[in-house]
């Protein structure tokens, strides 16, 4: 029987200060990335026109750009995509002097520029997206609301199944994951598309999953080891679930790697965000969710609280860092 970390007895909780340091550093990086160059929203969110075209590999990008300028489309991004000769053209601003919510004028102008520069019939359109700014704005609001509401739904569920203390800890850990993932997206300059938002929400589910499995063990061990310190119960629970964590993360990473390598251009950002999510999710379950749970327990002792027996390992500071 091959068991990874079967009888592990690491002092996870004892090392939490180092973990806070890492989290702090990552938060700083996130802020730097967000302030420095911000998020690169896809046209689904900003509105605009996207054309994926297949042309000759030697197509002149500069000529394409000036052709677009001549058609009244300024500042378009032209990007090689996948195989040579495949391009993505993104025009975020509408053709000068047209109603941006009526997407067709801009889309037609991009087509006209291509006809002129590349030549009619010398290219095929693989994909076309045209979104008015109104629709894009609606989608942004919807995406934010979805993340926001799912937060509360999970909090409510955990409050019913466990206790509100567990729910609060899990949600704080999830918030940590989302913020760091956003930082990762900014740092890697990934485009924030619907698919990436989907990845962030899946990552939330996955990270919660991990937290819940540890908490489930904590709940069980709190009943089993009534005399132990809370931090010992946490440590024990994390160690006991470690083999499961390693294996599940392993299989998940295996499929994600396959998706990142073979899944194609559209899916790659999804896979990358999820890969990051697996790591941050694991990290936050151990180093954010568990210490926060401990801190909450000390602040508002529950039925299973260790009360006065608590050795209180500098709880306040732990809480402050997490809230930052």
């Amino acid at each position, binding site marked *: *029987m091959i*068991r990874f970390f*079967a009888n592990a007895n690491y002092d996870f909780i004892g090392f939490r200060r180092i973990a806070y340091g890492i989290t702090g550093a990552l938060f700083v990086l996130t802020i730097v990335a967000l302030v420095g160059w911000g998020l690169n929203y896809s046209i689904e969110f900003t509105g605009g026109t996207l054309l994926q075209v297949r042309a000759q590999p030697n197509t002149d990008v500069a000529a394409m750009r000036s052709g677009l300028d001549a058609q009244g489309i300024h500042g378009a991004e032209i990007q090689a995509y996948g195989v040579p000769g495949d391009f993505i053209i993104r025009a975020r601003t509408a053709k000068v002097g047209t109603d941006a*919510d*009526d*997407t*067709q004028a801009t*889309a037609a102008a991009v087509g006209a520029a291509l006809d002129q520069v590349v030549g009619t019939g010398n290219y*095929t*359109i693989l*994909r*076309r*997206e*045209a*979104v*008015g700014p109104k*629709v894009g704005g609606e*989608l942004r609001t*919807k*995406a934010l*609301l*979805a*993340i926001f509401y*799912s937060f509360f*739904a999970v909090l409510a569920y*955990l409050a019913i199944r466990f206790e509100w203390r567990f729910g609060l800890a899990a949600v704080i850990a999830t918030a940590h994951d989302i913020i760091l993932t956003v930082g990762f997206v900014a740092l890697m300059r990934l485009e924030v598309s*619907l698919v990436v938002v*989907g990845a962030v*929400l*899946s990552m*939330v*589910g996955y990270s919660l*999953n*991990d937290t*819940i*499995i540890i908490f*489930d*063990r904590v709940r*069980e061990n709190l009943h089993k080891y009534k005399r132990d310190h809370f931090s010992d119960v946490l440590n024990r629970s994390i160690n006991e679930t470690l*083999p*499961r964590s390693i*294996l*599940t993360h*392993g*299989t*998940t*990473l*295996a*499929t*994600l790697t*396959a*998706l990142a*390598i*073979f*899944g*194609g251009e*559209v*899916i790659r950002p*999804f*896979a990358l965000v999820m890969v990051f999510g697996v790591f941050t999710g694991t990290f936050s379950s151990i180093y954010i969710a568990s210490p926060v749970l401990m801190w909450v327990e000390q602040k508002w002792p529950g039925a299973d609280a260790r009360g006065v027996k608590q050795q209180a390992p500098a709880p306040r500071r732990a809480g402050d860092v997490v809230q930052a």
Partner: protein
Amino acid sequence: MLFTSLKTRIGITAAMVIAAAGALVPRSTTLRVVDPDTKQVRDVVERRVPLKRGLDLQGGMHLGLELDQSKRASADPAKDLDLALTVLRKRIDEFGVTEPLIQKQGSDRIVVELAGITDPVRAKQIVQKNAFLEFRITDRSTALEKALPAMDRALARLGVKGGGGVSTAPSAVAQLLQGDSAGAQPSDSTPVEGGALSGLIQSSAAAGYDPMPGEYLVEEGAVARADSLLSVSDVRALFPRRLEYRWAASPISVGARSFRPLYVIEDRPIVTGSSLVDAKENIDPLTNGAIVEFELDRRGARQFGEGTGRNVGNYMAIILDDRVQGRPPVIQERIERRGQITLTGKSFQEARDLALTLRAGALPVPLKIVEEFEVGASLGEDSINKGILAGVVGTALVILIMVGIYKVSGMLAVAALAFYLLFTLGVLAMLGATLTLPGLAGLVLSIGIAVDANVLIFERIREELVHGKTVRLAIQEGFKHAMSAIVDSNVSTVLTALFLFQFGTGPIKGFAVTLTIGVITSMITAVFVTRTFYMIWLDRRPTMETLSI
């Protein structure tokens, strides 16, 4: 525990397998296609796996449409949107698309999804064409000619002088603002007669064209300028009473010069397209040009008969979406039920599309496309192949890990994984859910995550074995204790997936659906099917003392 009898468990598992496999058996599906040779819409029957593929996988077009009220506000937007929806349904039904989706989204948008279409430009035209048809009599009183001098004077008062020839600035309004005269450089090609408008608009006869009452010619290059001058409010106020003007749909050439006819017409139509009961494309045997033959309902026929009877010898303009089609013909006699529209310089296919939109009725208000997603079929095919490759590689890695670590138990988990895939696809087919590209990615990802429940159970069994329990008891306890973690973690995943579904558009909705179904079936396979496997195993080897795990 429920279903403790092994026979019951095997029976239930077998039933689920049969149901899922049955849902996935290729079946005859009716596809609506356009015959490439005859261009006729027809239905063909093909056998295919009943899994709906999203637009991003099979290619197609998604349009978000809203009422375009920039030119004319709608009196009752909600009613107009519903009307537009009905019209679009009729049009697309005849266009020839398999399972089109046409539905209202929110209170102000219509979503149209057309899978597998090959000519997106044409599809867009069919969706957007207003198809507002009307018949009006052209003016014989030469009222415009009489009014032109007054219009010129009004424009002169505003600072617009004549001589604005072909090559002048396009916007008369800009000139008004600048108070500048474009007449400084008169063009050689246009004889300047003094007036701003009268210099642009001339009667057919003056241009050397076979004359016709109510018809005027404007040189093609000056159309935009003439149009903007005509819409200046002071000029509009001088336009002859009870008359209106419309431009021709296509230009004509006189000698080497190209003109756009302008028609002065009565302000009331004799009859409109709402009285149409049928319209059919055809070829005019005389000119070989494309025509559309139409038929009116009884009330329309009576109106048409009265109108044309009163106007024998007059000319009748056929106006489609505010453009005059062809040169207005002279009314030879009273026309009642049937008539035809001559389309100059249009292809037979355009005649067919026009007939189609006329049959379906006019859109109450123009529609604008506020979002458009279009994926070529080749890209969709490519996406499927990549997704399948990623799935195969990912699954192979998961199998390797599971069997490597859990030996025979791992094999049971892999077998359960096969059931998982079968069930998930089966449920997707049963619910008629759509498999999208993100959904495909979600499915691949879920293979990695689906084994989590088995991993939880196996680890628990191992713990129990380490504590010295017998194989049978360890398995029992392992399943029992892993249960709460499995349920709680899966419920939270489903909750996030539900919110994803709520906010997402097509592809993301597909992802949320696949994820939700995947999570639920993975629970069933991990908890129920794997357990059944263990029970079969223990049943065959009742004296098993060590477990391969």
